């Protein structure tokens, strides 16, 4: 298998010699260097410097910014963010898995349309959609109005600026990112394996636990990453729906850069977030590699 990979690599290199491919790869390489690698390096460097007076940073090396991150105040922010992102991810999974499964059970003809409906929200900026959530959830908003009209409540509920409101907003924004990878693995799932398991005497629960779940694990992990990682950084949802009460890592970073003007500390928080995401991606890579081991060609 390794030899095959090497062979492919070699043939790729050979093909790159063609001018068009060389240009394309060059442009992409330049793009990544200039707009991803370099800015990130700047952030890492900034995180190791001290806050300056007139300038944003002073050229003095220090680890102080990282030490401050472990201040209980900021640690609390970090834990809050992790909790909110995790809760959102779990809800996305619980809603998205059955949703994606049902999608795969739909007639093949109808599936593209249904998938399109999943993707349609992407056509609107998520900021705009979050504002729409505000209109729904505010004290004299549609949801309260509906509940009042139905006579289920006597006075409007305080929905906006609560933790559930933030979770609902993130859930709304992130659910498609969970559904799509889950749909991809569930659609690929070989129905004959389920028949084989039934043939061997397995009931629904056993089939789900021992066949479907392990085989769709890469999709579950991918979906969780795609919701959890953005969930950590979606400061505008917390801002609009959580008000002042919700302070997340994303908000912290933004505030350090824009309000507090403490770039080194903001950079350190940003690096921490990046490292955290990197670790999760690494865990995903490991799990995917394990899942692929011995997979049928």
């Amino acid at each position, binding site marked *: 298998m390794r030899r095959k990979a090497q062979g492919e690599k070699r043939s790729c290199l050979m093909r790159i010699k063609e001018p068009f491919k060389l240009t394309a790869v060059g442009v992409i390489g330049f793009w990544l260097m200039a707009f991803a690698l370099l800015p990130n390096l700047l952030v890492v460097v900034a995180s190791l410097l001290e806050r300056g007076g007139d300038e944003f940073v002073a050229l003095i090396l220090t680890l102080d910014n990282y030490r401050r991150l472990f201040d209980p105040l900021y640690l609390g922010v970090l834990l809050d963010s992790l909790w909110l992102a995790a809760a959102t991810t779990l809800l996305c999974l619980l809603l998205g898995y059955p949703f994606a499964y049902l999608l795969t059970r739909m007639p093949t003809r109808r599936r593209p349309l249904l998938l399109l409906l999943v993707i349609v929200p992407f056509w609107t900026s998520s900021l705009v959609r979050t504002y729409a959530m505000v209109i729904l959830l505010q004290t004299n908003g549609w949801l309260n109005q509906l509940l009042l009209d139905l006579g289920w409540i006597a006075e409007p509920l305080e929905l906006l600026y609560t933790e559930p409101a933030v979770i609902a907003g993130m859930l709304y924004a992130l659910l498609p990112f969970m559904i799509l990878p889950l749909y991809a693995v569930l659609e690929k799932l*070989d129905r*004959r*394996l389920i*028949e*084989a*398991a*039934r*043939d*061997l*005497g*397995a*009931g629904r629960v*056993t089939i789900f636990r*021992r*066949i479907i779940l*392990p*085989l769709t694990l890469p999709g579950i992990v991918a979906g969780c990453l795609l919701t959890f990682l953005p969930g950590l950084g979606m400061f505008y949802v917390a801002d609009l729906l959580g008000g002042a009460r919700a302070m997340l890592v994303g908000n912290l970073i933004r505030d350090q850069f824009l309000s507090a003007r403490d770039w080194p500390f903001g950079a350190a928080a940003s690096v921490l977030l990046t490292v955290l995401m990197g670790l999760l991606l690494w865990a995903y890579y490991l799990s995917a590699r394990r*899942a692929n*081991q*011995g*997979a*049928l*060609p």
Partner: protein
Amino acid sequence: MSEWVIELRNVSKAYAAHAVLRNVTLQVRVGEFLTLLGPSGCGKTTILRLLAGFEPANGGEILIGGQDMRTLPPEQRQVNTVFQSYALFPHLTVFENVAFGPRVKGVKGPVLRDRVMDTLRMVKLEDFAGRKPGQLSGGQQQRVAIARAVVNQPRVLLLDEPLSALDYKLRKAMQLELKQLQRRLGITFIFVTHDQEEALSMSDRVAVMNAGRIEQFGTPRQIYEAPENLFVARFVGEINNLSGRVVAAAPPRYDIRLHDRVVNLKSQYIFGVGDRVHVLVRPEDVRIWREHEGSAEERAALFPAVVEAVVYKGSTVDLAIRLDSGDTLSTTQFFNEDDQALMNLDFREGERVFVDWVRDWETILPHEE
């Protein structure tokens, strides 16, 4: 308990308006190796799916061990399937694949281990217990699929074209192994294939199917030597078809005119004078005389013909021959050490020959359009 482990009574199945099985009736004996043989789309796999319980029948009854299967889901049936694509669980090791069935039924610990390892030993895979299916060759995957099914000690094992993905040599070897395995285990095998050679060499009985019907059900010998209709005759092995007309009837013998010759042949069918019939002759039953062989009187009873093509096949020489009447015959000539005349099978294309066949080895069927 009846002697039948499986009974299908007037079973029919349709997908939307398309009928896949039409009134199929079939009985399988305990411990029998039964093959469902037919072209693709003839409904043979559907029978397996109905027996396994993956799909319900639209009509008729399916009994396994005398018990009606109508409401019994697949997980409760005492049958196991070896799938065409094997359908091995890719994320589980060979051991766990085989252990899947027993585990579901609550077998644990050393008992489970012994049972799985015994089964793996039986299919010679005990050294591969820790591998994943993707790390095995096609033949090994095939064995795992068989082990995974037989470890459950089913009453009936259903095999859906299990050898079709293997290359020729491996397929031959697996045919033999499967047959031996079946004898050793004493489990009833229902084997689906479109390969007539496979069907003839492995089965106790063969059901030849076409368009959702069973065309003939019998031993391999009956199927090959006494086909009951043109479909079976043509599908199972190669056969030459000469059309003739009955000119004199004295059952069971008939004078049948084949172009300008009249031959006296035997048939189990009752024909009247003037009936049109098919005279079917297997290529290996055709005998050929070369121009210098035999006397003029002998030749008078033979069919004059011309060799059109010669195909050397190692152990045989196959000839395509055109009778003077216009019909083409294919023949298979074996190299035969005892027969000096046939030692030389160096036929030339365009050579003039005289043909005949081993009398009473032909099959006569009523005319079919």
